[in-house]
């Protein structure tokens, strides 16, 4: 680095260092300060001199940020798809690329509050505990806070979201000791909380499309607020289409059901509403970030290329799901089981779950052998719940939480096998002497 530039940088560091709050007097402010400072600058701490003298460039911040970056395509598509589904349900701009500005604006209005609440609430808890424990802010919540919006329905009430995040972060993570100590995936725990405490907001046919008024089971109209009005003012000024231009069109026979909701009646019923390509690319109702499979897989490839997520878990999860779906095909008991096995990969949130949720290193199995077993059983259980349990249309959340709880047990057996191998050697050695 050129010297002047370096000097400039150092002066800046000195200036920032001056406002550092005292750790003892105001631990919360200090934790807050440190959290932001370490984002701006990697600290000047050096190796202690007793262990290694040189450290790898990789740290937890980079690891976590790469995971968040890998999700960005899902965010982009999810935002647009919120708008697209909304207008498609109303029978306006039914083509995917029609009314782009309206769909994007509508999606942003929906997703931004969810994202902000998710991060502000979660990080506040994180900062509080960091201050209380007197250690630095750990980066784990970066990923959790980015994952939670993607697995929520677009119309989730923010107070329910807040409750769920408080529950998941406090009881699911901080109670166990913070980042790296939790047993269950925090983002999934938040979702599971809503799923069981406020089921109508996150299951059924009516929650996956944003901003619709219902009369009975039928769509009656749209709901717009001041934010749409603000965008209307801009769009109107530009001479573009505005919200509510088409009046209160009511789509006939529009159910809002997801492919999984229809699948109980067989594959033909699903394809009546959605084509396989539509399901693959994700222009369907669903949780915000989980619909577009190719974009999720692209994110997954980023994680695999950077070596951050475990390919063993992903591969064995795919194999497990395929195996279970095939088995159900062979069994062929009802219309759902009859759905060709590979179409299970088109529907639902399998890809999002296996790429971003199952591969969380803290809650997954830690041994390589354990990862194979863990992933495989997630695949099996997820399809099993999806097809065989009429109460839960989708199985990945529960399958992953279930296997999260079991992963220490899997690791225990793998590690025990290693211990036994060693014991055997000791015995053999003793006999030999």
């Amino acid at each position: 680095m050129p010297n002047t530039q370096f000097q400039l940088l150092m002066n800046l560091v000195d200036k920032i260092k001056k406002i550092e709050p005292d750790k003892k007097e105001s631990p919360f402010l200090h934790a807050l300060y440190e959290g932001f400072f370490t984002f701006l600058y990697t600290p000047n701490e050096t190796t202690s001199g007793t262990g290694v003298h040189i450290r790898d460039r990789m740290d937890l911040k980079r690891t976590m940020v790469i995971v968040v970056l890998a999700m960005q395509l899902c965010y982009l598509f999810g935002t647009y798809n919120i708008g697209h589904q909304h207008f498609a349900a109303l029978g306006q701009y039914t083509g995917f690329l029609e009314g782009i500005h309206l769909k994007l604006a509508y999606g942003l209005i929906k997703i931004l509050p969810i994202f902000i609440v998710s991060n502000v609430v979660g990080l506040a808890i994180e900062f509080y505990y960091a201050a209380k424990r007197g250690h630095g802010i750990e980066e784990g919540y970066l990923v959790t806070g980015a994952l939670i919006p993607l697995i929520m329905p677009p119309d989730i009430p923010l107070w329910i979201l807040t409750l769920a995040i408080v529950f998941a972060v406090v009881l699911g993570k901080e109670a166990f000791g913070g980042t790296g100590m939790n047993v269950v995936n925090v983002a999934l725990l938040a979702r599971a909380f809503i799923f069981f405490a406020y089921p109508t907001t996150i299951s059924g046919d009516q929650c996956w499309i944003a901003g619709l008024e219902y009369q009975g089971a039928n769509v009656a109209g749209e709901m717009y607020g001041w934010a749409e009005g603000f965008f209307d003012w801009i769009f109107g000024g530009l001479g573009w289409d505005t919200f509510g231009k088409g009046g209160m069109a009511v789509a006939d026979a529009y159910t809002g059901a997801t492919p999984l909701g229809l699948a109980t009646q067989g594959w033909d019923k699903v394809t009546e509403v959605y084509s396989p390509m539509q399901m693959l690319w994700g222009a369907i109702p669903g949780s915000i970030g989980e619909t577009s499979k190719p974009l999720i897989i692209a994110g997954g490839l980023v994680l695999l290329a950077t070596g951050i997520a475990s390919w063993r878990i992903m591969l064995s999860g795919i194999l497990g799901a395929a195996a279970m779906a095939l088995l159900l095909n062979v069994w062929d008991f009802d219309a759902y089981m009859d759905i060709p096995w590979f179409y299970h990969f088109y529907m639902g949130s399998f890809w999002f779950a296996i790429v971003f949720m199952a591969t969380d290193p803290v809650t997954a199995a830690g041994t390589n052998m354990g990862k194979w077993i863990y992933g495989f059983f997630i695949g099996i259980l997820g399809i099993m719940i999806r097809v065989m349990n009429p109460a839960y249309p989708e199985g990945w959340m529960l399958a992953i939480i279930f296997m999260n709880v079991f992963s220490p047990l899997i690791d225990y057996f793998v590690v025990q096998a290693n211990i036994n191998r060693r014991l055997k050697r000791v015995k053999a050695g003793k006999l030999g002497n």
Partner: protein
Amino acid sequence: MRTGSTRIFIITSFLLLSETIFAQAEKTADRGVFTIILMAIVVIIAFAVILQVANSLMAVEAKKSGIDPEMAGFSIFPSVNELVSPGKRGFSGGEKVTVLKKGFDIKLEGAAPGNIDGSASANTFAMQPPNFRGIAPIPKVVVEIGDNVKAGDHLFFNKKTPDVKYVAPVSGEVVAINRGDRRSITEIVILADKQQQYRQLPAFDLGKSSREELANYLFDTGGWTLLRSRPFDTVAGMHDVPRDIFISTFDTAPLAPNLDIVVEGQGEAFQKGLDVLAKLTPGQVHLGLNAGGKKAPSPVFAEAKNVQKHWFSGKHPAGNVGIQIHHIAPITPSCTVWTLGVQEVIVLGKIFTEGRWNTERVVALTGAELDEPKYVRTLAGANVGELLKGNLSGDNVRLISGDVLSGQKKSAANFLNFFDDQLTVIEEGNYYEMFGWLLPSKPVPTVSKSIPSAALFPNTLYKGDTNMHGEKRAFVMTGEYESVLPMDIYPQHLMKAVLTNDYEKMEGLGIHELVEEDIALCEFVCTSKQPLQKILRTGLDMMNEQG
């Protein structure tokens, strides 16, 4: 035949599966991208299975006609060795090579070029009791400041084992006895004479004497202090009889000296040392040789007698003796093995060939912060500052006795550790880096594929510095340590066992097989910046106290 039946099972299950797949493919008119990909995968796997079966059949045929398929390279597939390093199998003369696939070479600037330069010389030397792990912090010192000693004269002994003498590496005047925490003795400093004088050692007939006589002779001459005992990596106990003795003849650590150069012209002493060692153990003296180098190992190693040779090939830590022991005959909690470095074997041999305590050794001065990295010939325990005089290119540097992974931080006034043959100088990384976690402002060595330059240009040499590159965190990532440790051990679980004081698990998970240098690379790659070597030492000390 377990493998045979598994294979038949796999093939039949694939056939059955493919039937369902094809049946469905016909049923539905539009086959998705997935179907095609999955079918392709199935076809590839089936093809691989067929190849594997054919390969096994070939091996069976070979066996029938009396050829060992492994030795003769009877296989459809090229062996890993042939793929990774074509032609290197030749070094071992057809002997079995243990190929270690896990590991990582940290490529640093400042390797010493391949000849020994005598120009750097030190005048002060020190014997440092802390170098000998296992003796009391305050040993009995038998010399006083101002005394003149010859090389080989007794300096101190551990009060529990008064017969085992620690001797002067050099002749001269004792100028200081430095103390550290709680009055522990850290350095006994000797100002060297211009002309070295040696204590004349009594002659010893190796052929006619018993092991006990030999041990007593080594207690007195200082030879016993060259032996290091595992588990725990301590000094060899007075009454210990090791199961085996292990010597690694190559060092894969970053910038480590090339031992082929070190051993040049020392063949006689080295062989003598091996003969002495063979007498000290009822088991074998095992020699680990490098099958993966650019050149064949020195004939001193390859043609050594009275030893069992084992060939290894792989990245660091393949050259660590601990890794080699794991693959030759693992350490169990109840056994003791000894290890020595090549230069210690030479010193041991010279007691017998020259009749004097000659600690002359080759030290590699390495690292990016040196003007001129080189090999120098000096004596054990040389002063760091004197060795580096006029050779440092900066002052914000860290001086390390040993390599960057498991060496010890020193100041210019300190001395090289007794067993070290390398001095590394790298930059101190006490700088702030803006958005360092996102965009490294300068090239840094890494195993992570998330930094494209490291993945794309694997042969780049890095300067390396001592910055932590992040903050300490709880264990989060998994599988990192395993990927650089070529042993059947779960380091992360072991570390957690140490942190929770779980003795049974520590023993079960193989803490006895490890010392600090073996898991140093795991500590380097650790995303959470955990001090693994420190944790391991805590665990080893706990186990050692338990007995």
